């Protein structure tokens, strides 16, 4: 014989004053957990969104990030015309030799500063990255000292509106357009012409080279050949693999999230336990009555577990609702790979919300286990006699 569900639901609400604090506590815990994890998810998603499986990136052997790599012009000449690289209509290889420069810029509306990543793209740079699209203004004209900045970055950095100019290496650069990269790492970049960037920032070398492969087989052949060529101290890797590995920035956020979840859930378990003990204490006579009516110990135990679970789940739902408005909200921090400002979003994936709810349920059940055991073990007569 089991108790009807309405009994549990009503019990949760009848002592609403004591319940409210616990529900709110669980809600906040779940909200914090979900939000911090959603940051890590957003960061990793922006890395994962970036690569194109048909592209191969070439960097210096030993460098850990594109921005700290160097590829000389001689090296580029050596591999640029290999047959595995796809060609465009004019039969030019689809290769983009990029220059990455870090620029210190003030943040929008504050004294604080940020490092901004400038990418000088080669001729085929845009064709190789079709996810990058212009959303306002126009593309830069090489030689005119023009740049196109990410719209999301523009929201965070001073003087990045279209029509603004800013000073870099003694030259005035004009912002002529905004780009958007569909939530990829390019949403944290400023683009300009590659050779112009090399001139302005006095860079002898390219940072990296991105090439489009003819097909899957040629990609494997190209990587083998690059590895085997002793003249080239370079490393080739698929663009997807490169960006897939750029997840270091998410590590501290994950640590923070895990730590917060653990510590806060312990607190929440205590709170739930307190509420449930109080509930058991207040309903001692009721429990005795139920037992006399023939309900078994097991039923009482389950009843309190269900009640605790419901209570916490309510908090979990509330917490998810609290966190939900921040979904898609764009934020930024320094990337631990490139040391430049990286823009990403809170991403409240459905599985993350489900995890939050499961987490709250766990807190509720863990918190009500001991009180429920106590309720189930109450001696019937003594319980009936209690006031």
């Amino acid at each position, binding site marked *: 014989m089991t108790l009807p569900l309405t009994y549990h639901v009503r019990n949760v609400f009848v002592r609403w004053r004591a319940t409210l*604090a616990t529900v709110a506590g669980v809600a906040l815990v779940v909200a914090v957990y979900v939000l*911090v994890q959603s940051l890590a998810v957003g960061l990793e998603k922006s890395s994962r969104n970036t690569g194109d499986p048909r592209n191969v990136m070439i960097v210096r052997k030993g460098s850990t990030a594109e921005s700290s790599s160097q590829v000389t012009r001689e090296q580029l000449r050596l591999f640029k015309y290999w047959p595995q690289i796809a060609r465009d209509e004019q039969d030019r290889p689809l290769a983009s030799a990029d220059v990455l420069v*870090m620029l210190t810029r003030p943040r929008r509306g504050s004294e604080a500063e940020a*490092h901004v990543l400038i990418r000088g793209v080669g001729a085929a740079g845009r064709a190789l990255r079709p996810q990058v699209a212009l959303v306002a203004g126009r593309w830069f004209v090489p030689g005119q000292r023009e740049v196109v900045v990410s719209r999301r970055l523009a929201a965070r950095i001073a003087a990045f509106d279209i029509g603004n100019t800013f000073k870099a290496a*003694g030259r005035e650069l004009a912002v002529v357009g905004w780009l958007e990269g569909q939530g990829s790492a390019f949403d944290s970049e400023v683009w300009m012409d590659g050779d112009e960037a090399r001139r302005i*920032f*006095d860079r002898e070398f390219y940072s990296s080279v991105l090439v489009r492969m003819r097909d899957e087989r040629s990609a494997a052949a190209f990587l083998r050949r690059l590895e085997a060529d002793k003249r080239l101290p370079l490393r080739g890797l698929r663009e997807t693999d490169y960006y897939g590995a750029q997840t270091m920035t998410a590590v501290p956020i994950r*640590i923070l999230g895990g730590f917060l979840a653990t510590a806060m859930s312990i607190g929440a378990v205590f709170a739930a336990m307190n509420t449930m003990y109080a509930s058991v204490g*207040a309903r001692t006579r009721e429990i005795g009555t139920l037992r006399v009516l023939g309900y078994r110990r097991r039923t009482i135990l389950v009843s309190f577990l269900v009640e605790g679970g419901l209570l916490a789940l309510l908090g979990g739902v509330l917490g998810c609702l609290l966190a939900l408005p921040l979904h898609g909200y764009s934020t930024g921090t320094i990337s631990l790979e490139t040391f430049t*400002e990286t823009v990403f979003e809170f991403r409240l994936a459905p599985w993350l919300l489900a995890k939050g709810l499961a987490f709250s349920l766990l807190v509720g059940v863990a918190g009500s286990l001991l009180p429920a055991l106590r309720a189930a073990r109450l001696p019937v007569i003594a319980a009936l006699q209690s006031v």
Partner: protein
Amino acid sequence: MSTGTFVLKNALRNKRRAGLCILSVAVSLFLFVTLLVALREITIPPEDVGAASRIIVRNKISLGTLLPARQRAVLERLPGVAAVTPFTWYGGKFRDEDATLFGQFAVDPLKLPVLLPEARVPPEQWAAFFKDRRACLVGKIVADQYHFQLGDRLPFTGTIWPCDLELRVAGIYEGTLDDRNVFFHHDYLNEAVGELNQVGTWWVKARSLDQMAEVVAEINHAFANTAAEVRAETERAFQMSMISMWGNIRILVRSICSVVVFTLVLVSASTMNMAVRERFRELAVLKALGFRRRQLFAFILAESFGLALAGALVGVGGAWFFYSHVSIARLTQGIFITFEVTPRILGQAWLIAVGLGIGASIAPAVAVARMSVVEGLKTLD
């Protein structure tokens, strides 16, 4: 029975509840201290003795762009300048490590004692460091961690610089704020990279503290409109600039801190409420016996205060003990290094505990003050 024992007995009457209440306060305060310490570590640069008179010169474009070595002669001729050394981050990987947790900097060895006066190194080790081009000075913490001995050879793979290095331990320093770096000869780096003649930053020591602002302005002026314009600033300003790079993470941690405090107040207040409501009848009896509202309030306050402070003792004390005995650097893969629980943070946590003790007693106290004796005696719950 004295008032003290009465309060104590009341607080411990429901031992389980008292325990849970203390523990939840303790956990929250532990969390609070941890977050504050983490926030401090990423927002407030540590101050050290030598920093006051150091000026850091970087490329105006950003730290990522190098400076020409020829600037040194110009810097040294400026009137307020006492000493100049290149200070270049090598950023290599040590042996086969995936991520090396200590920094390696290429410097002018002869100028290092002037620029880094707080570093304590035995004179014979300084001499050995000066003499050998491949020599390096290792921070004590790193030396202990890896069990380095004088004379050990340390291989590094360049991640930023396209050259690998092999350094020989000539000395071990301690006494700086972060004894976790390796210093080596800039000449060796320059040679290994093929005479690029470029440096990461310049570290400049001013002749006196009064001249700092003047020297900063002089340096900025000296390279204005040259091919490599610089940005000179005091070490402190430099650190603040680095910290502003963290962006919104600081706001995030700060808001989490406030959520934690809020949750803490909520949970403890509800526990106090529960405790008081449970003995409404009893309090009504006390009222009927002639106890004043003020006295009843004092009972409740004392109990709530006691629970909050006991929680603080466990939570704050626990945090202090934990972080001063556990290597956080290893636990967080080197993201947090010192993780020092400062007296200021301890004070803040205690303040919150006190506020909590007072805050949590208000609602029940008001309820008790308002209740009429008859009503209270009738309460069953």
